[in-house]
C-alpha cells in the first residue's frame, strides 16, 4: 500500500470516529485535532443537510432534532458511494424501520420511501409516454414491447398514508391517525412535475410485471395479470397506467442509472 493511501486511511478513520482523533502513537501525523474536527463536522453536517433536503416530510414527522440525530447516525454508518448527493440516502427508510423509538410510527418510513421515489423520478432520464392511440395501430398491439418509463417508480406502503401525505404536501400539521393497510403508489414525472398516485393492486401488478420482464410482449404481461385478476381488471390496469403516462415502448426507453423501486421489506 502506498504511503499516501495508508495516511488517507488513518485520516478517514479519524473522520469516522465519534469525536476526537483516535489516540494512538501516530495520531499526531494527521494534524491538529481541532482542525480535524472541522473536517469531521463538515462531512457529518453536509450529509445531514443532504438528507434533510431529500426528505422534508420525513423531517416534519420526526421533528428537526430527532431527524438530525437519526440522519447523523445514518451518515456515520452509511457514507455516500458516489459524489452526487442527490443519490444519497437510498437506504434511509430501511434505517428508520430499524429504529426502536419509531416502532409505533412505521408509517414514517413509508413517507420516506415516497419522498425517495419522487426524488429519483425527478432526476430520471426522459422517454416519451406511450399513447393509448398507439395500441390501435398495426401491427398487433399485443406484440408491442412495453416497459415502464424510466421516470416512474412503484412504492409499496404498509400504511394508508394518503391523507397524511396530502396534509404534508399542503404544509399542514400532520395527524397521528395513520392506520395499517398496504397501498401501492406510482410516482410518475409528467412535464416538470412528479405526481404520486395510489393505484389498485392489479395496476401495481401489471406495472411490476412489465418492469421485471423487460422485452416481454404487452399481450403476455396482460395475460399473466389476467390469470388471477381477470381480463377486465387487467385491461383497466393498462388503461390506468396509460392514463398516468407511466409506460413507453421498450425501444424508446434509454438506459437509466437510477435505483429501481422503493418497496418496503
Amino acid at each position, binding site marked *: 500500500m*502506498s*504511503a*499516501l*493511501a495508508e*495516511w*488517507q*486511511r488513518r*485520516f*478517514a478513520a479519524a*473522520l469516522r470516529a465519534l469525536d476526537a482523533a483516535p489516540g494512538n502513537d501516530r495520531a*499526531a*501525523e*494527521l*494534524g*491538529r485535532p*481541532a*482542525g*480535524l*474536527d*472541522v*473536517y469531521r463536522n*463538515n*462531512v457529518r453536517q*453536509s*450529509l445531514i443537510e*443532504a438528507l434533510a433536503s431529500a426528505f422534508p416530510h420525513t423531517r416534519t414527522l420526526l421533528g428537526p432534532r430527532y431527524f438530525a440525530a437519526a440522519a447523523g447516525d445514518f451518515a456515520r454508518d452509511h*457514507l*455516500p*458511494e*458516489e*459524489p*452526487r*448527493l*442527490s443519490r444519497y440516502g437510498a437506504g434511509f427508510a430501511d434505517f428508520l424501520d430499524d429504529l426502536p423509538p419509531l416502532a409505533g410510527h412505521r408509517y414514517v418510513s413509508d413517507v420516506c420511501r415516497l419522498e425517495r421515489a419522487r426524488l429519483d423520478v*425527478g*432526476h*430520471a*432520464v*426522459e422517454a416519451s409516454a406511450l399513447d393509448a392511440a398507439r395500441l390501435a395501430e398495426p401491427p398487433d398491439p399485443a406484440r408491442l414491447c412495453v416497459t415502464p418509463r*424510466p*421516470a416512474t417508480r412503484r412504492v409499496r406502503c404498509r400504511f394508508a398514508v394518503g391523507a397524511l401525505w396530502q396534509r404534508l404536501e399542503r404544509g399542514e400539521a400532520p395527524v397521528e391517525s395513520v392506520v395499517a393497510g398496504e397501498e401501492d403508489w406510482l410516482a410518475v*414525472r409528467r*412535464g*416538470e412535475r412528479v405526481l404520486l398516485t395510489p393505484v389498485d393492486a392489479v395496476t401495481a401488478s401489471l406495472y411490476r410485471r412489465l418492469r421485471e420482464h423487460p422485452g416481454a410482449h404487452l399481450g403476455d404481461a396482460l395475460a399473466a395479470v389476467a390469470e388471477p385478476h381477470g381480463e377486465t381488471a387487467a385491461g383497466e390496469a393498462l388503461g390506468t397506467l396509460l392514463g398516468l403516462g407511466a409506460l413507453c415502448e421498450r425501444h424508446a426507453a*434509454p438506459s*437509466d*442509472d*437510477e435505483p429501481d423501486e422503493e418497496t418496503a421489506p
Partner: protein
Amino acid sequence: MSPSLTPPLAPTAVGIGFKPQHAQALLAASRAADFLELHAENHMAAGGPAREELLELAKRYPLSVHGVGLSLGGAERPDPAHLARLVELVNRLSPALVSEHLAWSRLDGHCYNDLLPVPLTEESLALLVRNIDIVQQALGRRLLIENPSLYVTIPINTLDEADFLTELVTRTGCGLLLDLNNAYISAHNLGRDLDTYLAALPWHAVGEMHLAGHSLDTAVEPPLRIDDHGSPVTEAVWSLYRRWASAAPEAPTLIEWDTKVPTLERWLAEAELARTHRARASREPTRMPA
C-alpha cells in the same frame, strides 16, 4: 462534442454561483451576471426539468463547471463512472471554464463529501499529476486546480504548497484557480506568511479567481477561520484582491456563496463590488511576484 452553447467569457468578468432558486430570475434577465459557476455534481442527472433549465441558462450565460467530487488528490485513480458523467456534462454545456480541487474525498468505495487535505509529498505530487492527466485527456481540455482552505498542517508534508502547485502546473499543463479566501484562511489557520505564499504562486497559470466570505470559530484556541461561504467577502480578502488581482489580468473572478444564500440582487451587488475593487486595483501598484 455538442456545438458550443455558451457565450464567450471576458477576461475580467465577474460571475456568481448558480443556485436553482435563482434560475427563473436569471433566465428572465438578459445578462444579470457576467458568468455563472455551477457545482458539477449537482447537475449530473440523466433527465428532468432542472437539466432542461440548465441548457437554457447555458445559451445565455458563459458557464464555469466546478467539480468537487473527482478526488484528484486521492491515492486512487478518478472513478471512471464519475469522470464519464463529468465528460458528458462538459460536452453538453460547453462551459468556458472547468475546475477541480487540490483535495481528496474518496477512498475504498466511500465518499467523504468534503475537500480533504492532501499531504504535500513527492508521492502525492506524482499521483495528482497522473490523475489530472487522466481527467484532462478525458475532457480534451485544460483543468483549473483550486488551492485549498486548510485546517490542519500535515506533519508529513515535505513540500511547500506554492511549490507543489507550480510543479503541478509545469508537469500537467493545468491552470490554477486561485481562491484568495482559501489562501487567507489557510495562512491564518496554519500560521503561513500570506504574501510569501502568494508571491511564490505560478501567476501565469491563474485562469480564475474565487472570492467568498468565511467565519471565525472562537470556540477553539487558537481560533480557526472556517470556509463556509455564508457571508459577504471580508475586508481582509477584498484588500488581498485589490493588491493581487492585477497579477492575473486575464482571470475572471467568481463570488461564491453556498450557505445562507442571499437574494440574487444582493449577490449581484457583491459582484459589482468586485468590479469596483478590481478597477481600483488596476490604478494601484501591483504586488507582482518576485
